[in-house]
């Protein structure tokens, strides 16, 4: 099998590598820039003097974020939300995608059901009715308000059902012959073989939960219940200059927008950034075929 790659092949591999290095740098530079800003003094950042290295190094912006006792609590709420939300959502997605992945002979109403789900991506009632529904269910100020409405992500369901379909039919047949029911087949055959797809949808769900802040603002009546991203929104003040009253002038001065916004990005994104490299181990090639051969 070990063949010496041709010249063309080697040229491709080298240029491919260079190209990927180039675009990775393109993605990395702004991040480094923002990191540099977050460690620079407010005045240097305000004057636009910071490029890729901190100017007048300080950790003030981070002290401002971490200095608040609310930070840890909000972090806790976020963790709770991500764990509960992802677990629930993944469970539902796995189970919901299974029947929808069947073809029409095996499950005659599947297309009707599929459209019922897809319809909800396209149409929604808007802010007020959704808020009223959540309120009348008594979910205000509870984790449920953050986790339940998004528990079924139809996009993820569709993605997963497409992966399910690509699994070899022989495996399922074999399992059915062994007398396994739908639940057992799903659990023993589908789930282990869909790890890359599950890692993908799981990542989307986690990132979605981690990043969303507006629902926290909307459904939490007490700032103590804010998840991290919602809390971080409150760290940065955006002043409405129309209503600035003389008492507020001092606040104006404390408004060192840029550094704290930059710090916020890192504080907020870091935990979720490290999730991806961890999940990459599930992107195993040939996982499906390997199991067929056995």
């Amino acid at each position, binding site marked *: 099998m070990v063949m010496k790659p041709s010249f063309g092949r080697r040229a491709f591999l080298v240029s491919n*590598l260079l190209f990927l290095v180039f675009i*990775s740098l393109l993605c990395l530079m702004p991040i480094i820039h923002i990191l540099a800003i977050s460690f620079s003094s407010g005045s240097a950042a305000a004057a636009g003097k910071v490029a890729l290295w901190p100017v007048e190094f300080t950790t003030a912006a981070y002290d401002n974020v971490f200095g608040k006792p609310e930070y840890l609590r909000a972090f806790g709420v976020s963790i709770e939300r991500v764990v509960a939300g992802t677990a629930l959502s993944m469970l539902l997605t796995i189970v919901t995608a299974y029947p929808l992945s069947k073809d029409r002979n095996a499950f005659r109403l599947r297309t009707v059901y599929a459209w019922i789900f897809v319809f909800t991506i396209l*149409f929604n*009632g*808007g802010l007020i009715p959704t808020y009223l529904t959540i309120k009348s269910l008594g979910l205000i100020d509870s984790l449920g308000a953050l986790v339940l409405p998004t528990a079924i992500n139809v996009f993820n369901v569709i993605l997963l059902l497409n992966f399910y379909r690509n699994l070899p039919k022989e495996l399922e047949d074999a399992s059915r012959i062994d007398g396994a029911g*739908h639940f057992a087949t799903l659990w023993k055959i589908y789930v282990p073989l869909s790890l890359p797809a599950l890692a993908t949808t799981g990542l989307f769900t986690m990132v979605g939960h981690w990043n969303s802040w507006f629902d926290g603002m909307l459904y939490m009546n007490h700032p103590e219940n804010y998840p991290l991203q919602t809390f971080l929104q409150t760290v940065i003040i955006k002043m409405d200059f129309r209503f600035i009253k003389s008492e507020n002038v001092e606040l104006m001065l404390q408004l060192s927008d840029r550094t704290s916004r930059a710090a916020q990005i890192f504080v*907020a994104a870091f935990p979720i950034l490290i999730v991806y490299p961890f999940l990459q181990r599930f992107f195993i090639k040939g996982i499906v075929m390997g199991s067929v051969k056995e």
Partner: protein
Amino acid sequence: MNSLTRMWKKEWPLHLMLLPGLALIIIFSYIPMTGIMMAFQKYVPNKGLFGSPFIGWRNFQLLMDYPDIGRIFFNTVYIAVMKIVAGLFVPITIAILLNELRREWMKRTFQTLVYLPHFLSWVLLSGILVDILSPSSGILNQLLGWFGMKPIFFLGDNNWFPYVMVVSDVWKEFGFGTIVYLAALTGINPTLYEAAEMDGAGRWKQTLHVTLPGMMPIIVLMLTLNIGNVLNAGFDQIFNLYSAPVYESADIIDTFVYRMGIQQAQFGFATAVGLLKSVVSFIFISVSYVLAYRLANYRIF
């Protein structure tokens, strides 16, 4: 009757599996959908959805009577379509290129790096883009200067603004977009590559005849779902980057609705526009669903 019973006997676990999901979307999606009525109402809070007076198509009329409406629709579709196409092409290409890397750690490093920009907000990026694209001091124009080109006011020029939106959006999202294609690549049967190699196919041929067809279901799926976004050109991005001189090429439906919302206390107008957008998406998705089924005999969902 008989066949129905038989069907039920065979299929009930499948129905059961859908039940929790259905219950959730009924509660959190379908019940709130009654709010769509607001599009046709002068909503009075203490009368509620079922007691407020109906005003017919007035909100839609207001939208259609808007002097710049044609321009706004054009801008929206123009930017959105370019984003859909580029947002499909770039991640697929990058996923395939990443797949060519032999060393696992390299692949993972690149993957992680390109996915970083997804986590930046447009509020923050807008300031950076103003710097990078500045005609007087921006890096990009300095580069162009080396090639003897005149500086371009990318963010202030109607001829450039839409493309800046597309490129910067693709830059921000392509890394995150590759994830799903990388997952699709794992599902391709390695024996197919071996067989192709036996037949003397080079890497390029293998890509064309094995990799791409293997990814096709996911590609078609992503395309169909993204086509639903023809009227979403990206509010956050444009809102943070546009300015009065480029309204002509930059004003999209969502920015316009936002500005109207400041003037109006009513939710009716925004709901009406939202409904219109939903209907358009629905039509586009349905058509592409049917097309995919007819042409490729593939049901996307």
